[in-house]
C-alpha cells in the first residue's frame, strides 16, 4: 500500500477497498520502524492521527469524501497545528504546542486528510541539508551517507522512504525543490500568494511559500487543489477564482517552447547532472516540445540578493522569539537584557544566529541603502529578466541543483558552499514565480537528480501538465529507495 500513489489510494479509500484507519496504521508502523534511522519526523502522535483517520472513515461512509479524505500527509514542522508540538526545528520552540491551526492545516483538516506527523527541517527553514535542525540531521533514503537537502528535508525523506503518502513543505529559496531533487521526488512551490502563510512560521515573509511534495505531478495537483485558496488572515494571500490544477494534466506538449537559460547551463553544474538534464530535455523534444536558448542576465545575482533580503526579513521575524511569552527561556539570568541574551543564545543554533546577524547588519543605519534597497532594486531586475524571457518561451527548465546530494557534514562547515545549493532555485522566490522539481534520473553514487521547471505566474496547471506528460513517458518518479 505504501508504494501506491496518492491518486490510487484516494480511489481505494473512496471505493472502501481500504480504510483510512488501516492506511494510517500502516504508515504509523513504518514510521515507528524506520524513523529512528531516517529521523524524518520530529513528532508523531498516533492518537491524534488515528482520531483523524477514524473521522475520515466516517466521512467516507457518509459519502462526504473528497480526494484527500483519509490520506496520511506529513506536515512540515513549520506549520502550526492545534495540539501538536510545533518546533520549526529549533530548540527555541522545543516546548511550543500550538493552540491554533495554520491556514494550510485547516484546509487539510477540512478535506479530511490525516496529519501523520510533523517532519524534521532545518532550524527555522534556514539550511539546505537539514543539518541545522535542533533535532538532528535527516538521512537521504537513497544513500544514508547523503543529506536529504533542506530545509524540507524531513518531508522529502518521508515521501521518498514511503513514510507518508505525501508531505507539505515550504520554500523560501528552494526548500521544497532542492530536497525534492535530492530525494528523487516531485515538489512544487506555487506562485507567491496562492498558499496561505497564516500559521506558517515566518522565515522571510516576502519569499516564503508553502507547497506540496509527493511522488508524482498528478499527486501534486490533487494536493494543490486543497492547499491553494484565499485566506483573509494573510494580507499577501491572493483572492482568485478556484482552479482545478489537474485539469490540464493530459494535454499533449506539441508546440511547447521550453526556455533554457544559458546562465543555468554554465560552469558549476556537475557532469552527471548535466547529462541527466540533457536526457530529460531529449525526452521533451520527443514529446513534441522545442527548446530555445534564453538569457537571464541578472540570474547570477539571485544568490547575493537572496542572502541580503532573506536574512533582513528573518532578523525581524525572529525577534518575537525572546523567551517572554513562550518558547525557550534561559534558566537563570541577571536582568532583562541578560534574559534575552541567554534565551536567544541558547535557543537558536549557529546558522540562525548567522542569518540574524547578517540581517541586522544589512538593515542597520548607514548600510540599509547599500544592501537592502540595492537588493530590492536588483530583485526587480531579476523579475524583469523572467518577464522578458517568457516572450520567447512558455516554460523554463534547468537543473534544480548543481550536484546530486552531498554527504552529511560535507558542507556544513562552509556556509558559502551551502548557500550555493540554492543557485538555481532562489530566483523563483525573488520573483514570486511558481517552480517545481521532478526526478529525471540518477547521478554520482546513484543519487537522484531533479529537473527544475519554472513557470510564469499562475501557470501551475501548465507546469503540472508538463511534468505529468514526462512522468507518463518515464518512470523515474516510480523508483523507490525502499
Amino acid at each position, binding site marked *: 500500500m505504501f508504494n501506491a500513489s496518492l491518486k490510487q489510494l484516494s480511489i481505494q479509500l473512496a471505493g472502501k477497498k481500504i480504510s483510512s484507519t488501516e492506511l494510517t496504521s500502516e504508515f504509523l508502523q513504518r514510521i515507528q520502524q524506520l524513523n529512528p534511522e531516517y529521523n524524518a519526523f520530529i513528532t508523531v502522535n498516533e492518537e491524534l492521527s488515528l482520531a483523524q483517520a477514524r473521522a475520515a472513515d466516517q466521512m467516507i461512509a457518509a459519502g462526504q469524501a473528497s480526494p484527500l479524505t483519509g490520506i496520511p500527509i506529513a506536515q512540515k514542522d513549520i506549520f*502550526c497545528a492545534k495540539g501538536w508540538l510545533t518546533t520549526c526545528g529549533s530548540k527555541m520552540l522545543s516546548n511550543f504546542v500550538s493552540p491554533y491551526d495554520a491556514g494550510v492545516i485547516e484546509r487539510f483538516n477540512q478535506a479530511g486528510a490525516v496529519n501523520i506527523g510533523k517532519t524534521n527541517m532545518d532550524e527555522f527553514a534556514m539550511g539546505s541539508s537539514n543539518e541545522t535542525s535542533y533535532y538532528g540531521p535527516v538521512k537521504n533514503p537513497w544513500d544514508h551517507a547523503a543529506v536529504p537537502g533542506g530545509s524540507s528535508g524531513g518531508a522529502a525523506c518521508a515521501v521518498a522512504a514511503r513514510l507518508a503518502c505525501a508531505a507539505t513543505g515550504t520554500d523560501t529559496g528552494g526548500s521544497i525543490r532542492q530536497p525534492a531533487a535530492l530525494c528523487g521526488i516531485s515538489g512544487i512551490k506555487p506562485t507567491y500568494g496562492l498558499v496561505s*502563510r497564516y500559521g506558517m512560521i515566518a522565515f522571510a515573509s516576502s519569499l516564503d511559500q508553502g507547497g506540496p511534495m509527493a511522488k508524482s505531478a498528478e499527486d501534486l495537483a490533487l494536493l494543490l487543489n486543497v492547499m491553494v485558496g484565499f485566506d483573509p488572515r494573510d494580507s499577501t494571500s491572493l483572492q482568485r477564482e478556484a482552479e482545478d490544477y489537474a485539469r490540464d494534466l493530459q494535454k499533449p506538449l506539441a508546440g511547447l517552447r521550453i526556455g533554457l537559460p544559458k546562465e543555468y547551463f554554465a560552469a558549476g553544474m556537475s557532469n552527471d547532472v548535466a547529462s541527466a538534464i540533457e536526457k530529460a530535455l531529449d525526452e521533451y523534444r520527443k514529446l513534441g516540445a522545442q527548446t530555445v536558448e534564453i538569457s537571464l542576465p541578472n540570474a547570477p545575482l539571485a544568490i547575493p540578493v537572496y542572502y541580503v533580503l532573506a536574512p533582513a526579513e528573518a532578523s*525581524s521575524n525572529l525577534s518575537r522569539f525572546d523567551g517572554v511569552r513562550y518558547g525557550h527561556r534561559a534558566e537563570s539570568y541577571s536582568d532583562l537584557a541578560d534574559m534575552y541574551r541567554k534565551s536567544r543564545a541558547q535557543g537558536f543554533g549557529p546558522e540562525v544566529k548567522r542569518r540574524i546577524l547578517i540581517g541586522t547588519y544589512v538593515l542597520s543605519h548607514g548600510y540599509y541603502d547599500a544592501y537592502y534597497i540595492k537588493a530590492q532594486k536588483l530583485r526587480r531586475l531579476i523579475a524583469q529578466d523572467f518577464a522578458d524571457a517568457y516572450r520567447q518561451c512558455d516554460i523554463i527548465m534547468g537543473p534544480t541543483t548543481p550536484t546530486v546530494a552531498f554527504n552529511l557534514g560535507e558542507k556544513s562547515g562552509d556556509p558559502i558552499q551551502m548557500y550555493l545549493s540554492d543557485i538555481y532555485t532562489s530566483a523563483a522566490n525573488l520573483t514570486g514565480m511558481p517552480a517545481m522539481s521532478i526526478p529525471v534520473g540518477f547521478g554520482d553514487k546513484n543519487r537522484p537528480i531533479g529537473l527544475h521547471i519554472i513557470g510564469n505566474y499562475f501557470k501551475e496547471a501548465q507546469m503540472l501538465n508538463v511534468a505529468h506528460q514526462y512522468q507518463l513517458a518515464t518512470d523515474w518518479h516510480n523508483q523507490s529507495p525502499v
Partner: protein
Amino acid sequence: MQWEIVIGLEVHAQLSTHSKIFSGASTAYGAPPNTQACVIDLALPGVLPVLNKGAVERAIKFGLSVGAKINSPSIFARKNYFYPDLPKGYQISQYELPVVQGGTITIQIDGAEKTIHLTRAHLEEDAGKSLHEDFHGMSGIDLNRAGTPLLEIVSEPDMRSSAEAVSYAKTLHALVRWIGICDGNMQEGSFRCDANVSVRPRGTEKLGTRCEIKNLNSFRFLEKAIDYEARRQIEILEDGGAIRQETRLYDANKDETRTMRTKEDANDYRYFPDPDLLPVEISASWIEQVKSALPELPQARRDRYVAEFGLSAYDAAVLTASRETADYFEAVVKQLPAQAKLCANWIMGDINGQLNKEGIDISACPVNPPQLAALLTRIGDGTISGKAAKTVFESLWNGELDKNVDAIIAAKGLKQISDDSAIEKIVDQVLAANAQQVADYRAGKEKAFNSLVGQIMKATQGKANPAQVNAILKKKLDE
C-alpha cells in the same frame, strides 16, 4: 540674553476603532489583563497582521481635516526593538509614506490666530503595558493594549511658548474628538503628548539642541514640563554649558524633567517596509467618500459664527471648543436667531460655569437647548429680567416643575412689571417720598438717579422692567 523657546509636539491619538489595528481583538479599556489579546497580539509563531480599514479611514479623516496630503500608496514599516511589552520584537508603524503628509492647525493665542504646520501623521500600533509592582522581583505584562491603533501626529517646531503648545494640543484634542476619530480621554491614555523643546537666542535662525519630553498626559503637565525644561536649558546655556540631545521624563510630583535615555543609547530601529502588509492604496473615491462624511469643521464653524451671528472671534472659538458645545449653541440660536450674543453669553457663562463646577460634560447638561431657548425667549420678550432669569436657570438645572420655564416664572412670581402705568404709579410714589434726591439730581448729581432706581426696584421687589423704569424716571425728572 533674550531666549526664544522652540517647541514641536508629537501627539499619539488612540483611534476609536472597536478592534485593534492588525487583529480582531477588542480595544475596550479596562478589561482584566491579557483578556483582550488574541494570538496575533501575543505574536505567536506564524501569525500575521491584517490592517483594520477603519484605522486608515480615521487617518484619512484627520488628514482631510487639516488640509494635508493623503499619500497613496502608504507604507507600513517595522520599527525593530526589544521590550517585553512589544510582543513581536518590532512595532508596526509607518516611516516613509505615512497616510497623512503636511497640513496645518490654526490656534488662538492672545486673541490672535497662529498657524501651526504639521509634518505628518502616521498610523501605528500601541505596545502593551509592563507592570512592575505586585510581582515580587518580576514584571507582569498586560497585552490588552498591544495593537491598539494610534495616529501619531507630528508638528513642525512652530510653537514659541508653553501657552502656544497647550493651545495647539487643546485645538488638536478638540479636533480629533470633533471628527470622531479619538475619544480624547487623557486619563485612559487616549491622547498623549511628547514635547520636543529647544531654546535659541532670540533673533537667530539655527535651532538649538532639542530634548524630547515623553508621555505628558495632561495639558497642565505639558505646560509645566515645557516651562521647566526651557528654564533648565537656558540655565545650562547661560552657564556656558551645552545641551545634550536626549529623551526626558516629566515627574509631576517634583515638577521637573529628568534624563530617560541619551542619544548614545538610542536604538537603531532598522526600519524597513513590513513584508506582511501590502502598500495601502487609498483611492480618490475613498478619499471623496470620507470627505463627504466629514462634519463641518471647527474652523469653518468659527468663521460662520462670526459672519452669520456677528460674534467675536473669541466667542466663536469658545463655542467651538467642542462639537457638543457648538451643536448646543446652534440648537439654542436656531430658536433665537436675532439674539446670538445672548445665547453665546449664557452658554459661555452660566452653562459652562455650572458644568465646570459639577464636572460634567455638556452632553449631560441638565438644561437642554430647548429649555435654555425658552428661558432666553422670556428675557427677550421682557417677561423676566436678566436677574430673575438666573433664578429660573437654577430651577431648571435642579429639575423643578418639569423644567417648564413659564411654570417656574409663574410659581416663583418672577414676571416683570412691564405695564407703563403701573410703573409710573410707583415712580410717582418714590419721587414724592424722596424730594431731596430729586433735588440733588436736578442740581446735577447724576448719582442720585441710581439711588432712585434702587428705590423703585425695591418697591417692586425687583420685578419692574429696568429699561422701562429708567425711561419713565428720566422722563419724569426731566419734566
